[in-house]
């Protein structure tokens, strides 16, 4: 059972890692954020799988912390960059 769960954790990580190509390719800033968001969720799933596979209950708390903070990057992005302005900054590729 433990091997299966660890394998599943590895698979989930591999999948969300492939999504990270979007961080490099963009094209918009939203796309880059989406990849980070997906990695956050995948990371939570992988942590839970590892926690059960290795019978390490405290690892669940790490997943809990990540779940609480999962939206923070998106919030900071929206608050920091006033994307509401019509010729929004997300149109131009950042430097």
């Amino acid at each position, binding site marked *: 059972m433990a091997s299966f769960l*660890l*394998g599943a954790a*590895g698979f989930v990580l591999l999948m969300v890692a492939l999504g990270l190509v979007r961080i490099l390719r963009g094209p918009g800033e939203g796309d880059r*954020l989406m990849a980070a968001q997906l990695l956050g969720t995948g*990371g939570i799933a992988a942590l839970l799988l590892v926690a059960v596979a290795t019978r390490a209950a*405290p690892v669940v708390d790490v997943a809990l912390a990540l779940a609480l903070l999962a939206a923070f990057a998106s919030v900071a992005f929206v*608050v920091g960059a006033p994307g509401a302005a019509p010729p929004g900054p997300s149109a131009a590729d*950042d430097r």
Partner: protein
Amino acid sequence: MTPPLALDAGLAVLVLAVAASTIAARGTFASVIGFVTYGLLLALAWVRLSAVDVALTEAAIGGGVTGVLLLTASARLRRAEKSPAPAEHPGLVLRVTAAILSTLVAAGLAAVVLMPASPVPTLAPAAMANLPATGLGNPVAAVLLAYRAWDTLLEKVVLLLALLGVWSLAPDLLWGGRPGPRHLVRQESPLTLLAQFLPPVGIVVSIYLVWNGATAPGGAFPGGTILAAMWILVMQAGLADAPAVGSRTLRIVLVAGAALFLAVGLAGFVVADAFLAYPAGYAKPLIVAIEIPLTLSIAATLGLLVAGPPARAPEA
């Protein structure tokens, strides 16, 4: 390869790839997002290294407050940068030299990793042997708050010094004012919903982490960081304004952790035998008593570090 080792190898390759993309990404925004995911993956690596306490701290700091700090800064930089960023391609000679130097350093470290000392140096038996005297069940907490309490005390001072450094960047006129812009409450925004719903949960989780930290992974650092993240969220949603840095209440909260720590440490001269020594039998209640203001101070300091220097003149 066994499944655990395959998982570790995959994670190691992934972290290196994310680090490389953070370094070499075109554009600061991509670089910053890369760094946020890097922090998240490091938390996973710490779990695999059986360092759950570190993983919690890395998840809370790397996944939460650092992302907010860097994303806010990169947005401000983009607005303020007048001249285009300098060419991203410095001379070939410099790049090749830097690559050779970095490879040499990495190879040297790798050689050290591949040739471990034997016998392996460890303080784990000593830490465990003295654990009953502290009344704690988590050896990492015992190191942080009893064996090497000096480090933790000085770290708190470093945090305050960094905050003073950030504040001192404010023009004279704005000294004592409130940091950052006043965020407006956006009606019917999901952000407002999140900022109303999440903080109560976050406060409960951080209390749980601090309380649990005595016996299991947790403690003042992750607890304080999550508390700070919740405060930042409320400020960013505009539900509460940042406090004026001249406020006396704020100053008291900021120094409370270090001050109480220091007071207990000095009392150690009288009631125990040395600075920062706890009298036998009272170690655990004293440590818990220190941890509560310490958590609040850490939360306030981290929150204000993210908020930045004062940007609005103090109200007369």
